[in-house]
Each structure stands twice: as C-alpha cells, then as structure tokens.
C-alpha cells in the first residue's frame, strides 16, 4: 500500500522529465490578445496560392485561409497530416478511395457557409484549371482519378493507383479553399482579392510597406485565434530585419536568419530572445552535365564527391551560413531519412577524408583527367548559402588538383541557364514544402524537366515509381535506400552538399509557434499567442 504514492510520484517525475525534454511550446495557458508583428523579406506578386510558389505570399496571407488537411503545426518534423476543414477521414481497403468528413458551421469572412461544394470547386481549380488560369501543382495530383462532393459534409477523392503520400499531398499549404460562388463568377477573383475561412480577416495591404490582418471572431475553432491581429512588414534587407527584431519593433521573421545574425540577437537581447532551429527541407547539390566531357564519366563525378570533407565543412560552415547537417535524400530526423551510420557508407560521406581524397585523385587519373584540370562552376548569385558553399566547394576541389573558376549568374538568369544546359558543373537546389519523397525526388527522373544534368537512368526511374506505390513504410524505406545509393554513390549523378539549416530567433514573448523543416508550413498563426 505504501508503494503506490511512491510509484505515483515516480510516474509524475518521469512525466515531467519527458515534458521538460521535449521543446516546450506553451508553458502557461495561452493568453488572448495582442498584435503579432513580423517581418517578411519579399512581397506577394498575386494573392492566389494556387498560382504562386513564394513564401512572400504564404507568410502574410495564409492566416486568411484554411485547407482541407494541414501539416500538424505542433510537430517538429512537419510530416504529420491532420484535419483542417476535414474533421476526419477514412481510407478504403484498396487505398483507392479517401472519404473526408467536412466540418459543419464553418463560415467565410463574408458570413456565408462553407460546404464540400467549395472544397470541390477549389480542387477543381487546382486539378483542372479553367483556360487562362494556371495551376502550379497540377502534376503532383496525377494519381487522382476523380473528386466528388456527394453531400455538403462529405468530400471524396478517388485514385487511379495507390499513392502512399496522398494525405500529405492534400495537406499542401498552397491548397487554399476558396468560395465556389466567387470562382464560378470569376476564376481570376482570388488573384487580387481575399475571401477565406481562416482565423484572421483581411484589413489592408499597402504595397511595399505592410499587410494587416485582424482576428476572425466567428472562427470555427472556438477560442482561437489567440491574437487580436497581426501586422506583416515587408523588409527586404536582412540587416534591417535583424535591426527590427533587435530594436523590438518586430517579433519574428518566419523564414530564417543566418548564424551570425542569430548570435547578434542572442547577444543583444539575452533572455528576451528564443531561438528555434531545425534542418531545412532544402539542400544544394551539384549538377554535372552528363553530356559534356569529362562529366559523362562516373569516375569523375565520384571523385568530385569524394573530395568534399562534409563533416569539417558542416562544422565550419554552420557558423557562417545556413547549412549544418550532413544529409542524404531526405531531411535528417524525418521518417524516411537514412541514419548517419548508414550514410557514412556512401561515397564522399566517409570520415577518413585523406583516404577519400587519395581515391578521388586516383579516379581522376584513371579517367584521364590531368592534374590542374580547369572547369567553370556556375553558381547562383544569392548570399546564403550559395556563395559560401561555392567558395567552400572550389577550395575542396582545389585539394584534389582541380583548378575551378566560379562564375556567378544573377538569380534571375539562373534558371534559363540551367534549362539551356549551358553549364559543365552548376549549383542546383532541391527545396520542398513538405518532407515527402514523392515531393522531393521526382526531379531525378530521367524525364523530369528539372533534370538539368540530363542523366538517363532507368533503374532509378523504376525505383522511384516503386517507392511511390509501396504502401508498407518499411518496404518504402528499403527502396529509398537503394535509390539513394544509386543516385549519390554508384552513379554519382549529383553531389549533395550540406542540408540547409533553419534558424528562427524570435522574441521570447511569442509562443505557440513550432519550427518545422519547411518555411511554407505552420503559418496560419491560429496557435500563436503573446505572453505580454
């Protein structure tokens, strides 16, 4: 009998320990009130998320809308789909039919009721845009055979073949739910207007200056949002952004700051600042043109990867720019990522750099590349982390006897250059908005428009299709391991450098926001509250 209280106490202590270790999101009860002021580095071109892909639209505008499903805002890995406008769902046994139960009583900001009709209309716009309207993510939904709204609270999605990533796909932060009547009247309406069901109503947008939203008192999630409103200020210069937070004129910037900027803020504001960090669903890799000598020879490609001391680079570069972890094809820490011990077996990921470099030199010699061989490395003219990575790469390649010249192409002219194939070796990037192999990896298909290195590898294509159809996660993991090995090691089609690292320092009075690997996620601001 005496043991019970002790057991209870131990359990309580254990529970507290666990809670204490997990990054605390809300220590106290959320407090209502206050205006969140944040900085956004760029401005939205138009207001229609189905047609844009810049965070400059998401950050100020996402709070005005809801989506069918969303990524769990309290989950650091950013990989768990939860319902937004969907209350619950069921998946048929053959994994071909998804039936969503839609919430009742959700109102648009003009007072009208939201039903599955609106969801269907919005998805129709995404899957089959009317003439004159673009949909940027149409291709991601190839697997969908049909969508239906049989009654106001049911939405049904039927697939042509099973796709394990479909739920996450539907949780895309870009798939805002619009009002069917407005779309029917004018499919371009949402390019210049705001009308959603989200936690905040639109107040004003002064071009080049700021964006204001205020609390939606009739929001379907009772008690939320906690904030009275928010104000997004557009500041493009990063030093000015830091100054704004440092001067406590702004509270947070939702994309990322660089390590020295974080250090500056921590030093200046001490415990008035909280820093949240996470690996980023973005990575720079080196593309080599497979149709140009000597990069058509996989020995040369492997050599270029072997030359890189990724671990030393990670230590040093993480102090000055937005990279940190050594990663493979999926963000470290997410369900499908390769554990570090396994990763070390791939070419260029081993710890013995002297051995790797010796091997690299040997491969180059074998492939007939002379010592002091010169080529041009094209890089995008963006300060973080492209430029530091470029400087690092060139110095690493110098150590295996390669004389590399760097040429910066202005960011605007970069894509045309890649598409034309006007390069030998160039910096490429892989950025996603949700960590999901189906969303991160299609560019490596032989047929992909984004396959700038123009590699043709049927085995790789097959593996890609297989993992997409695999319904068993363990099976999927196995196939992805093979895919990674072939992409980075055996054929060395591309050279992964270092995973980007996201650093968000914010004023300590901001609570309720959890960092995820994607700066497109978790921007509805309904969970955010201010402690003073």
């Amino acid at each position: 009998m005496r043991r019970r209280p002790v057991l209870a106490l131990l359990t309580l202590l254990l529970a507290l320990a666990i809670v204490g270790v997990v990054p605390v999101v809300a220590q106290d009860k959320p407090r209502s009130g206050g205006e969140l002021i944040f900085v956004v580095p760029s401005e939205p071109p138009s207001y229609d998320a189905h047609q844009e892909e810049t965070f400059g639209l998401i950050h100020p505008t996402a709070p005005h809308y809801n989506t069918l499903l969303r990524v769990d805002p309290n989950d650091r890995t950013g990989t768990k789909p939860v319902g937004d406008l969907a209350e619950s769902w069921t998946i048929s046994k053959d994994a071909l039919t998804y039936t969503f139960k839609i919430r009742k009583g959700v109102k648009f900001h003009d007072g009208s009721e939201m039903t599955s009709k609106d969801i269907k209309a919005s998805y129709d716009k995404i899957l089959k845009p009317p003439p004159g309207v673009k949909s940027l993510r149409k291709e991601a939904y190839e697997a969908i055979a049909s969508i239906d709204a049989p009654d106001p609270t049911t939405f049904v999605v039927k697939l042509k073949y099973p796709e394990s990533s479909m739920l996450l796909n539907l949780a895309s932060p870009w798939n805002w739910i619009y009002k069917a009547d407005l779309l029917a009247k004018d499919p371009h309406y949402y390019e210049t207007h705001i009308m959603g069901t989200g936690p905040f109503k639109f107040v004003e947008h002064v071009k080049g200056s700021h964006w204001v939203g205020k609390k939606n008192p009739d929001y379907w999630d009772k008690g939320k949002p906690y904030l009275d409103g928010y104000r997004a200020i557009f500041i493009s210069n990063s030093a000015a952004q830091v100054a704004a937070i440092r001067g406590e004129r702004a509270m947070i910037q939702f994309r990322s700051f660089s390590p020295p900027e974080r250090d500056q803020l921590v030093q200046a504001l001490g415990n008035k600042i909280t820093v949240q960090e996470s690996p980023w669903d973005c990575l720079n890799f080196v593309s080599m043109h497979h149709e140009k000598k000597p990069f058509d020879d996989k020995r040369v490609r492997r050599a270029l990867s072997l030359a890189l001391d990724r671990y030393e680079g990670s230590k040093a570069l993480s102090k000055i720019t937005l990279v940190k972890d050594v990663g493979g094809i999926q963000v470290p820490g997410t369900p499908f990522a390769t554990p570090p011990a396994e990763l070390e077996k791939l070419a260029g990921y081993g710890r013995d750099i002297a051995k790797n470099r010796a091997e690299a030199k040997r491969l180059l010699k074998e492939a007939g590349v002379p010592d002091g061989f010169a080529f041009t490395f094209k890089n995008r003219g963006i300060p973080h982390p492209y430029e530091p990575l470029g400087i690092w790469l060139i110095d690493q390649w110098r150590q295996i006897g390669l004389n590399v010249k760097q040429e910066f192409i202005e960011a605007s002219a970069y894509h045309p250059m890649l598409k034309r194939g006007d390069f030998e070796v160039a910096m490429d990037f892989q950025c996603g908005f949700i960590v999901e192999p189906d969303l991160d990896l299609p560019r490596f298909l032989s047929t992909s428009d984004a396959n700038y290195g123009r590699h043709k590898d049927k085995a790789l294509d097959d593996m890609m299709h297989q993992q997409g159809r695999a319904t068993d996660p363990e099976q999927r993991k196995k196939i992805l391991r093979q895919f990674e090995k072939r992409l980075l090691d055996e054929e060395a089609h591309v050279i992964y450098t270092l995973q980007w690292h996201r650093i968000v320092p914010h004023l300590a009075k901001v609570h309720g926001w959890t960092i995820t690997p994607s700066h497109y996620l978790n921007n509805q601001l309904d969970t955010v509250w201010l402690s003073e």
Partner: protein
Amino acid sequence: MAISSPPIDQVGALPAQDGWLAITHQFCRRRPLGAIGAAVIVVMFVVAVAAPLIAPYDPVVNDFGGMLAAPSRAHWLGTDAFGRDVLSRLIFGSRTALLVGFGSSVLGATLGAVLGVASAYFGGRVDLYLQRLMDIFLSFPLIILALALVAILGNSIPNLIVAIMIPMVPRAALVIRASALAIREMPYVDAARAAGFRHGRIILRHMLPNVMAPYLIMLTAFLGQAVLLESSLSFLGLGVQEPMAAWGLMLRGAAVEFAETAPWMAVFPGLAISLSVFAFNLFGDSLRDALDPRLRTQ
C-alpha cells in the same frame, strides 16, 4: 551623380613645358593636398603591381581552422569568415580596384573626348545627333545603367569595365564638347581650314592640346566614381565575384553580419575604398585648380 565643373570653355592650355621635375615640385609646394592625393595613388599602384610579392598569404585559400580571427601578429588585419587573410585580400583587391577603376575611366574619358571633339568640330547635323544621343544616356542614373549593362553582359572583369565605362562617356563628351566649341570658334581654326589643312591635322594640332586640361580633370573625377561604382556593384552582388579579392566584395554579406563580433572584416575594406577615392578626388581637385587660370591665386 553628375560631373559638374565650372564653364571651362576658357580653360587654358597645359602649363608650358617647364621640365617635369620642376612642375612636380611646384605642384607639391603650391597644392599640398593634391600632392598627398598623388602620393597615395602612387602607393596604390606600387602595391597593386607588387601584390604577389608583398601579400603574406594567398588571398583565396580557405582555412577553417583560423576563421574570424582578430588582428594578430600572424594576421595583421585579421581573417575573414573563411579564414582568408584580410590584409592579403586587401592588397590583391587593389589590383581589381585599379584595373576596373582606371580601365573604365580612361576608356570612358577618352571615348567621351573623341565624341565631344567630333561633335564640336563637325558641328551641324553631326553635333545635333550626337548631342541627342548623349542626352539620352545622360538621363539614366549612373547605377541603373551599370546595373542593366551588367545584367546583359555578365560580370567578368572586362564586362564590368564596359558596364562602368558606358555611363561615363556622355558626361565626358558634354564637358569636352563645351571646351572644344570655344576653340572651334577661334579664328585661327577657320584660317587653317582656309589654308587647306586636313581635318585630322587641325584636330590633332589645335583642338586636342586645348582639351587636355578638361580631359585630365574628367579622368580624375571618373577614377573615384569608378572605384565607388565597382564597390557598389560588388556589394549588390553584380560586380566581381568570389573567390576573387575586391574591396566592394569584401564588404558584402559576412562582413555586415559579423560587424559587431568581427568588425575588422568591414572596417578595413571600407577604409581602403574611402582612402583611394579620397586620394583621387584630392588630386583631381588640385589638378583642376592648377589648370584653371581663373582660379589661380592672385
């Protein structure tokens, strides 16, 4: 930024050939500021030429072990975010500054002079069209034109020189034209034409010596501007590129972010730019005073 000058249609010719040493001596005595400017320029030249000999380290090699180190005996001006020696980068950066600075200003002033003289000498239709053309290019702010040109041409050093040179041509042409016009109106030019001298000879023997003064003044004015423009472009990411050493480039990115913890990264390149532009301007200023007869001390 416009180049302005007093209406120098009456600028006299260069002082009579007194012997270079005597002239220099006179210049140093009468115009100490200009002499200081000239001295700095000479030092810059020497440093740039002798860079590989003077610089203690290779300006491009990374050294992550010693990154962001404060000035010390090993590194007099400290190291940057990649462990590269700031002093060595500064020294090699002077090459870029002088190359781009001198290249673009000499080309710009010369081309402008040619167009200005041609415009003044031939007059009539030629003058009208050339003037309109110059007016058009003059209306663009300096940096906007340079920006656009760099976007088109790309940012290798030769392209950078062209991009910076082009906005300078109309400014030089305008001033030189005014000067040449004054000469053109002089009776001896008409007399020479009447006597049957060819165009070329008249231009070379009569007009050119008289526009030397404004030409030199424009040249020195451009020097400072060119260095500033190059550093502005590099700062914006449109100029010289890594891992080359260039002063404006050194002020980009990391230098600003580490301004509090590692100020040496931003302070020294900024000083180098300021000092050289300062020197160019001091020298140019004094040169103008020396060559403009109306400004001579009583």
